[in-house]
Structure formats: structure tokens, C-alpha cells
């Protein structure tokens, strides 16, 4: 008996009678016999609630979770602290949404989304912002497509210091559209301005730069943006909301489109499952760029297309996170900053690591391991309950045995000490 079904045998009989059939199977008489299932597909017999919980707990238990381990891995997904209230509000919202409320007309939920947009406008300095997509890579693809259509051009220039995941997704799409994708080098850890500008020809629709970039380095966004604008090319900035509490905002350097991942605002790691991506646009293109945002029309909030539950929950979580943090969100960023520098200094003071780039960074930095393969170091870290950094050679082979380490506000001095000690031990 399926426990999600509330029709009784009697009710089923009555409905069959009304429909003039003897059993529900007759409702499938339109389906030709040759395509009907002859044998059941192979599924284990339905598990009870307790048993499925055991199965899932067992699977979950075989993963090392950042809630037990100490995480120094970043590369696009960060282990930030999520206050209990945020989790609680998120849970409450989740329960509410599970009540199947039509959110597109639910005033209190639209209010939360509207408030989130206001927060993001303040953080990014952009003219209008919405929770455009599930995932930054998709938001980038959309922005690039917009630029190409708007400029009627087919070339996209992207910095190689943009997260490789995003670039790969962009590459798949450019291949499908028959668009040209050029990658400007980042030999010293930041985008090579000369090379990037050299690539910007009359066919170029947009330039995409990330800040902080994949190596955690703060790019010269103002300089790049101005130079790109001189060539009448759109500038797309991939940004991190936390870093914007400290660094120049895309609104301040006049980016045309700014987008980023909402995961750092109260989101969990969740194996990289999408939370939401925000997209902000400048005043100049705001009439042309389709943003599905909540608008206030004569005091009534409206949303064109309802968000799916997952994205809506992530937005509510982000909104709760920012609401709870207030201006203190700057302190989170500052703590990340100081923790990262502390770790960087400690690591590079050992003989086992040396600095690669001498550039300002935020929350994340790259070092080169001189004695051991970073994959081996990562393996050893697991034994000490730590998730080590990202092995850069998978994506940037020229960097050799380099390690990308992220240090969030969650990391304590003791944890860093232990991390540095174990990472630099030569055995």
C-alpha cells in the first residue's frame, strides 16, 4: 500500500463506476500493447521509512563532510559559517513552500525576494539585480549570449583566470552556437591586460573577467573595464558578494553586467549543487536585459515567472543571511581576508611551500609545494580530518605542483597551525 495515496479502495471503486470501467488499468487502453511494460523494471521492494533513512544515512556517512572535517578547499564553493537562525528561517520557509503555496502571488515571500534584490543592489552597486539562474556558469552563458545578440557579433573574450568550470560550460555553448571563444592568459595570476586587449577586435561582443579571480587575486577591474569600454565592448564581471563589502563594486567600475554565486550567502557546500546565481545590470542595458525580478507596481509586488522551490529557498536563505549580518557582513569578509593572509604567511614561511604570485588576494591563494605532490598532501590531510586545497595542475598544467587554498572565517588559529604543520611535514 502506497502511503502517499489517500483514496480508499471504496473510493477507487466508486470512481471506476462513474467512469464506466472495471479497473484503473483500463484507463491505459490508449497505449498500444506492444509498448506496454511486460515485466516490472528491476527495483528493490519499497523500503520503509526507517529503512530508507538507514540507506541514506549510510551513504551520507561515507562522505567526509565539512561539518566534521576542517575545510581549506574553495575554488568556487566556500565553507562559510551559517548561523542557526538562517538555517531555521530556511527550514521554516521550506515547510511553508512544502505547503504548495503559489509563490508568484504570495505577498510575504515576494517581499523577501524584493528585499534580497535591494540588498544585492547595495552590495553590487548595479542598477537592477535578480536571482537570475541556478548557477553562475549558466548566468555567464546567458550574459554572453545577450552581449553577442545585442552587438550582433560572435566573439567572446574571457580571462583564463575565470573559474575553469564556468569556462568549460561557456565553451560547450560557444561550440553549439558557432561563436568564437578566446581565452586571455593569466601568467602571473591575474589577467594579462595587454593580451586581453589585443584579442578585443571589431568582432568582439564582450569581455568576461572574474574578481577575485580563480586564484583569489583581485583584478584591476577599473582599468580593464575602461579599456574594454573604449572599444565599445560589453564588460561582464563575475564577482563574489562577500568580497564586494571590501573591494570596488562592479557598479563603481561601470561593469555592464555583474554576476556571481549566492552560495557564499548562507548556502551549504552540497557537492556543488546549484544554489542560485545573481545577475545585475547597468542602467544602460536594463531595458534590454531580461531579468526575472520582483517589481513593485503601485505598491503591489509582482514576479513574472515563478522561481522553482530550490532557487527560491536559496534566495530566502541569502536574504535571511544578509538580514542577520547587516553591516557585520563586512566583518565576515575581513576575517576571511585576515585568516587567508595568516595562513599564506605561515605556509610560505616553511620550506615546503613557496609563493607563486605576488598579488593582492581575498580569502584564497595559490602556493607551490616544493617537496611533495599536492594530491598526496591532500590524502594525508584527510587522515587528520582536514580537506586540503585544490590541485591547480588539473586545470593549469603550467603551474605544476600548485595548491589553491581557501581560508574562510570559520578557521581558527589552531586549525591553521595544524594545517600548516601537517601540510609541510615531509614524510
Amino acid at each position, binding site marked *: 500500500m502506497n502511503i502517499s495515496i489517500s483514496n480508499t479502495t471504496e473510493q477507487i471503486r466508486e470512481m471506476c463506476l462513474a467512469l464506466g470501467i472495471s479497473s*484503473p488499468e483500463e484507463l491505459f487502453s490508449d497505449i498500444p500493447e506492444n509498448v506496454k511494460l511486460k515485466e*516490472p*523494471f528491476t527495483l528493490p521492494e519499497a523500503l*520503509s521509512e526507517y529503512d530508507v533513512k538507514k540507506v541514506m544515512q549510510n551513504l551520507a556517512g561515507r562522505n567526509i*563532510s565539512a561539518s566534521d572535517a576542517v575545510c581549506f578547499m574553495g575554488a568556487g564553493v566556500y565553507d562559510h559559517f551559517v548561523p542557526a537562525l538562517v538555517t531555521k528561517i530556511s527550514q521554516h520557509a521550506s515547510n511553508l513552500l512544502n505547503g504548495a*503555496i503559489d509563490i508568484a502571488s504570495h505577498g510575504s515571500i515576494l517581499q523577501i525576494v524584493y528585499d534580497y534584490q535591494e540588498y544585492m543592489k547595495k552590495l553590487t552597486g548595479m542598477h537592477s539585480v535578480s536571482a537570475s539562474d541556478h548557477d553562475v556558469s549558466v548566468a555567464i552563458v546567458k550574459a554572453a549570449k545577450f552581449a553577442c545578440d545585442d552587438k550582433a557579433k560572435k566573439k567572446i573574450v574571457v580571462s583564463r583566470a575565470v573559474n575553469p568550470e564556468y569556462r568549460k560550460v561557456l565553451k*560547450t555553448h560557444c561550440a553549439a552556437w558557432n561563436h568564437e571563444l578566446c581565452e586571455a592568459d593569466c601568467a602571473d595570476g591575474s589577467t594579462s591586460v595587454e593580451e586581453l586587449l589585443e584579442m578585443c577586435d571589431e568582432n568582439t561582443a564582450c569581455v568576461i573577467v572574474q574578481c577575485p579571480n580563480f586564484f583569489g587575486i583581485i583584478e584591476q577591474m577599473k582599468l580593464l573595464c575602461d579599456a574594454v569600454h573604449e572599444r565599445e565592448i560589453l564588460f561582464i564581471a563575475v564577482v563574489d558578494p562577500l568580497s564586494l563589502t571590501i573591494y570596488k563594486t562592479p557598479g563603481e567600475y561601470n561593469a555592464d553586467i555583474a554576476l556571481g554565486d549566492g552560495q557564499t550567502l548562507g548556502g551549504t557546500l552540497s557537492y556543488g549543487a546549484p544554489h542560485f546565481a545573481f545577475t545585475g545590470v547597468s542602467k544602460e542595458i536594463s531595458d534590454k536585459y531580461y531579468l526575472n525580478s520582483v517589481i513593485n507596481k503601485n505598491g503591489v509586488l509582482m514576479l513574472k515567472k515563478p522561481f522553482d522551490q530550490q532557487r527560491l529557498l536559496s534566495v530566502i536563505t541569502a536574504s535571511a543571511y544578509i538580514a542577520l549580518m547587516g553591516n557585520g557582513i563586512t566583518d565576515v569578509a575581513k576575517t576571511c581576508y585576515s585568516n587567508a593572509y595568516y595562513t599564506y604567511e605561515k605556509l610560505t614561511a616553511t620550506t615546503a611551500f613557496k609563493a607563486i604570485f605576488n598579488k593582492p588576494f581575498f580569502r584564497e591563494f595559490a602556493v607551490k609545494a616544493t617537496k611533495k605532490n599536492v594530491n598526496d598532501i591532500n590524502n594525508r590531510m584527510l587522515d587528520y580530518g582536514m580537506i586540503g586545497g585544490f590541485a591547480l595542475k588539473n586545470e593549469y598544467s603550467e603551474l605544476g605542483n600548485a595548491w589553491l587554498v581557501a581560508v574562510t572565517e570559520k578557521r581558527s588559529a589552531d586549525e591553521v597551525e595544524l594545517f600548516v604543520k601537517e601540510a609541510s611535514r615531509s614524510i
Partner: protein
Amino acid sequence: MKKSIFENKICGKHGYTLPQTAIDEYTTDSVSESLLRENKLDLPSLDEYSVSLHFRSLLADNDEYNKSECFHGVRYLRSVIDDVSKLDGFTGIHPYQLGDAGQGALELLFTAGHMISDMFGMDMFSLQSATKMQAMFTMLAIAKAHRQENDVKKNVILVSTDACKCALKTAAEFGFEVRVTDMTVDAVKSSLDENVLLLILKNPTRDGKFVTEISEIASLAHDAGVIVCCDASHVSSLIGIARPGDMGFDMMCFDMAEAFAISNSRGESACVAVGVKNEFTDYLPVPVVDIDEEEQYFFNYDRPKSIGKVNAFYGDFTAWIKALAFILTTGFDGFKEIAEVSALNVNYMKLLLSKEKSFVLKRFIFDNTAFEPSFSLDKSDIDEFAANYGKK
């Protein structure tokens, strides 16, 4: 005055499942008569959905449970499914952590992928697409890669009249020419020529009908060297009854929230699965989960024919946790029962509203509105809805 739990129908349903212990030697039959209770216990016995509804209606402050949504495609999400998706060992894992540290997650993806392949008669599924648009993109990119490899020049996509906007938009982005056709053997026959690369059709259709000539259409298309894709937007009405893979489809996509009750809101989920037959598995987006000789799961990126990545990381992992939990708690018989009760509910509702006799699967269009009663609704809910329909 709120409704008491005792005012609910008392009908011998139940909302729990017992742990499967495998111990069955001892029954209460052997308890001495003198020790047994005399009056038969008589408590309201409700299914999980009704219990949830009851407490929700009592507990809700200003946010009234909006049951009317359940007549338009919203299904009841079981609490346990929501719960297991929030386990620390799932929410706290980093996408780049070493495979050894994520064997549970990898096994979950591997298992869920295999199970749905079997359920829908496909050979392999990609879990990466977050939206229908991306799923369409994936299928078209695969078709394009396949075309390039076989050095053919075909450039026309044949779509059914009820095709989604996203199919048309994606095809345009690829530079394909779109041709619209009815899904009958004759109409397809007259639309097919040597330029047609791909055929996309909805089965069941937008108005809940099964495309009865599907086998004939598929073999006609195959004979002309055309790839046949299923936009399985309404496939949940078929699970346990028939499989797209057996109807001649080479590729299919479906929304996880539509197929499985893993989300309660309207609108799409963040996960649209794309399934393909053997001929096309090499083109699926990277990475795919594989198992090595030492029975360790790993992300396989070494797939030279792959179309690349369509989304960062591995898709909506949370949706896959819920999907696996739903599949495991439902089982084959459960899926069949859901399909049957859905069909019964929708046809009964259609009879009451439109008085029209033909059968549909899962949904119908009436009064310019799509009706899609949830399998959790019962006859009295539908009676009440129909009685009040059109009244303010």
C-alpha cells in the same frame, strides 16, 4: 472551531511503514487470552498526507495550506525525503574533495542513474542539466556531435505542435531550422526528408494524451536516419506502465520534480535528467560516474566524444538525493499504483468538469487551464473541487 482528527474519515489506511526486521518467529497469537485487551482499538487511521494536512491546517498561522494547488500539478513531498536530503554527509561535502572522501555521494549518483535508466528504458542518464532549456541544449548538442562524427549535413529539427518554447529557442540558437508537425504517421511521413536530423515530441502530450502511433512514427523516423527524442514532461503518468525506451526513443528528458514527488512548489525543479540509448552515451556531458576495478566510484572526465560541460559541477545533487529516496520508498508496485491512481483522479475530475468521455493520462486542459490532480488527492477532494468550480 477547527476540525478534530476524529472527524476525518476512518478507513484503515496508514501513514507509516514498519522497519523490515526479517524476524518473524514470534507473534502475539500466543499471548494468553486473559492478558489481551478486550475492546478493539479504534483510532482514526489516516495516510501520511492527510495527517500532514490536518496538522498543517491547525498549526498554520497566517499561511493557509493551499490545497487548490494540488489540482494543478503540485504533489505532496514526504517528510522523510526532505529530511534525508539535509543530512550533514550530503550538505557538507565539497565538490572537489577527493573521491575517497565522497564515495557515498558517488555511489548515490551512480545508483540513482542506473535505476532511472531501467525505469525509463534508457542506457544512461546525465544528471547535469538544471533546466529544461539546458536539457534541450544537451540533446541538440549530442545530435550535432553525432551528426558531425557521421559527416552528415542535416539541419532540420522536426517538433510536435505542442513543443515547448525552450525547444524552439534552443534550436534557433544552434542555427537549426525548425519544422512543426502533427504527431501522426501521415503527418510525420510528409514532413520527413533527407534534411531532418532530429524529431522531438511530447509523449504524453500537453493535453495528457498518449501518442498512440509512437512506435510507427519512431520506426519511420529511424528508417530515414532521424534521431527520435522524447520531451517527457508528463512522464510520471507512465512510470510502471510503459517506458519511453521501449517506444523507440533514442533520447529523452524529464523534470525530476515532475517524475518524482521531490518538491512541492509549482514550476520546474533544478534538475532535468537527460537519458540516451547506447549509441549516444559517449556524447553525454562530462563528468559521468564510473566504477573502477577496485570497486571505487569516480568521476570520469576521460570521454573524448563528450559535448563538454553544460553546468558547473555535477548538477543538482540535492534533487538526486531526494529522487533516490523517493524511488527506494516507492518501489515498482508503488509507481504502478501512483500511475493508476493519478489516471483515475484525473479522468474522474475531467468527467465531473467537462463531461467528456475520452481518457487522458495525468492532465487535461479545460477552460484554458491545465488540470493535473495530485495522486495524493482523493475522490472527496475532487468532488468538492468540482462542486465549487466556477463559483466565487
